[in-house]
């Protein structure tokens, strides 16, 4: 894919064509139980239900979707913070879903996560120096006190924090600076994979751009592979080489950002892109076609195509047969029996095409 920026990555081990992460048929169901003492299983929230994709080395893969679509659960499954119900996650070719103990710990060192809320993801009783040094402590690296301090201060400088603030506490920092602390902590072990789960949605507009630029700079410098999860489609467009759109636990469309935003094929992608308010009054859309209703409950998702209950193009087939995710010939793969045409994309008021 030519969209991928050349990165100054230290030459990856042999077989670099192999994706860094391969997700295959990933499923996560959270059981719903009833009863106080004897808990009976009465159903399951199908948070992630059969998701397959690759994360290529050095790219930024965006995952977008609305609340409850399973994007954060997918991230936590890749990190093995949750155990999948079925399916596998391969990291550098190795299935990590069954790893335990020291082998799991070794893999975890290669992947790090940045969280949404910079206020609750830092321990208020620890100095930020101690917080950023924590990965070294956990993995028993850089035992010397001075050595560790120097490493932490170098990290702080890299993410744009004043190294002299080593001994300060989180409450002394603003939201944007706290997110920088989170980035420094995540980069401490030089991970190969960084997962950012809504890293800027709690930040003010003027600060958001600071953190986005930091993540892009870090990626270019360190050759990181980034999985970027967000609900803001403009931010995802800015950050990502490829984008996956999720709806009710499934990927409905995936492809290069340019192709997906220029010509969305899945009606849900089209609906999302036409719903985004655009910061340009001359492009004001007076009669957009709006999606009606709300996202159905993931505990009881619609049969076959999960979008058919809200889809403006749904036919009888959509409620009978589940459409596979397949190449639609315009750059993206979409799971739809009746993908959007160029005319329809213009009609529903998608304003993301350049």
């Amino acid at each position, binding site marked *: 894919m030519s969209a991928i920026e050349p990165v100054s990555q230290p030459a990856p081990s042999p077989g670099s064509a192999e994706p860094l992460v391969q997700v295959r048929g990933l499923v996560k169901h959270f059981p719903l139980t009833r009863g106080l003492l004897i808990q009976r299983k009465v159903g399951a929230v199908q948070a992630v239900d059969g998701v397959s994709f690759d994360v290529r080395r050095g790219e930024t893969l965006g995952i977008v979707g609305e609340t409850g679509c399973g994007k954060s659960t997918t991230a936590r499954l890749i990190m093995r913070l949750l155990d999948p119900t079925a399916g596998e996650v391969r990291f550098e070719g190795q299935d990590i879903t069954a790893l335990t103990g020291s082998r799991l710990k070794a893999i975890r060192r290669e992947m790090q996560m940045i969280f949404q809320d910079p206020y609750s993801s830092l321990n208020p009783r620890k100095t930020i120096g101690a917080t950023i040094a924590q990965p070294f402590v956990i993995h028993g690296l850089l035992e010397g006190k001075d050595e560790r301090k120097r490493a932490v201060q170098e990290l702080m400088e890299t993410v744009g924090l004043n190294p002299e603030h080593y001994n300060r506490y989180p409450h002394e920092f603003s939201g944007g600076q706290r997110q920088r602390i989170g980035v420094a902590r995540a980069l401490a072990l030089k991970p190969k994979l960084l997962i950012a789960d809504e890293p800027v949605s709690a930040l003010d507009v003027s600060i958001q751009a600071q953190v986005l630029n930091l993540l892009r700079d870090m990626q270019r*410098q360190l050759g990181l592979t980034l999985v970027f999860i967000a609900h803001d489609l403009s931010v995802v467009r800015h950050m990502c080489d490829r984008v996956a759109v999720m709806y009710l636990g499934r990927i409905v469309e995936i492809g290069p950002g340019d192709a997906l935003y220029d010509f969305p094929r899945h009606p849900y992608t089209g609906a999302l892109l036409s719903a985004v308010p655009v910061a*340009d009054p001359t492009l*004001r859309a007076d009669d957009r076609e709006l999606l009606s209703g709300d996202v159905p409950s993931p505990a009881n998702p619609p049969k076959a195509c999960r979008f058919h209950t809200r889809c403006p193009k749904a036919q009888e087939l959509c409620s009978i047969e589940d459409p596979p995710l397949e190449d639609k010939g315009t750059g993206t793969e979409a799971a739809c029996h009746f993908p959007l045409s160029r005319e329809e994309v213009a009609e529903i008021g998608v304003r993301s095409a350049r």
Partner: protein
Amino acid sequence: MTEPLLRVEDLHVEFVTEDGVVHAVDGITYEVAAGRTLGIVGESGSGKTVASMTTLGLTRSQGARVSGRILFEGRDLVALPEAELRAVRGNEIAMVFQDPLSSLHPFFKVGWQLVEAVKAHRDVSKAAARERAIELLGLVGIPDPDRRVDSYPHEFSGGMRQRAMIAMALVNEPKLLIADEPTTALDVTVQAQILALLERLQRELGMAIVIITHDLGVVAEMADDIAVMYAGRIVETASARHMFASPEHPYTWGLLKSIPHLAGGREEELTPIPGTPPSLIHRPSGCHFHPRCPYAQPDHARIDPQLEPVADEPHHHAACLLESQLRRRLWAELGSGCTPEQAREAVGLPAPPPHPERHAPAATAAGEPSGPVPEVGL
């Protein structure tokens, strides 16, 4: 021009706290004409919410010190006794808040809460109030309103709760609706539904709307006029078209250059505003934005800019100490893709005096990272 529906004049709102006096709103003036939509944009702590709560008298119980005038159809709401203000609040001016879950009481049925709202302002029978509640739920697009009227808030989705809140605000067909971040907690497809609903209701009922948001996309879609707030003040007001096409204040430029565009792509470069918004207790001297402004000059730390009309655009005001002609040249440079530094050099403006806020250290130059490289072995 006819008398505006709402005219806020030199409004100040202060709170006395243990740490000092918080100058939440610091002398703002704006107008809303009947049937129009004003968008108030600002970041957290810019005073946009406090200003609107004060319009409804909702900051009175919190010990706020309020001065200035809020003229609603000629009556000054600041001076109005509580009992008279209560007749205005919810009746002629109504408000919709950000979080629809915490604005509805979880114990009571949605319909019951609507009936209470109807009966608070109108002397009608319970049956008639219930009829009105059902009618309102239908008006805001809740399917099957005669059944839904007996639902509890937890049985509604986020979007439906916000519709119910809007229904409650519409009980008495207010002339002015204040919507404070009405869609911030909602998903993008639901946000589009709620914004479309507000536009439809405005057309049908002819009410004026003040929409408060941090989202430039939302104001661009909704507002006729826009006011940009920073540190308790309005720094720029203009029609929506002018605000996006020819903004005059460096803070507005900073906001517009900070957001990625939906059609922007990977190559688009963002220019963040350096530093962080100031504390409203210890505000910077002079122009409150000068510590973060890439175009600040030495005397900007001393002189307090006033909101003044911009040349050739009668309804466009900005509070900036730079000359209008210079600002236009700067914006033209920025519009052609220059960085603030390049724009400054192009127009021959000296670099701003050093200030710690402006030197939020950028990420280090590209190259081999300086971080530790522990050997990783599996």
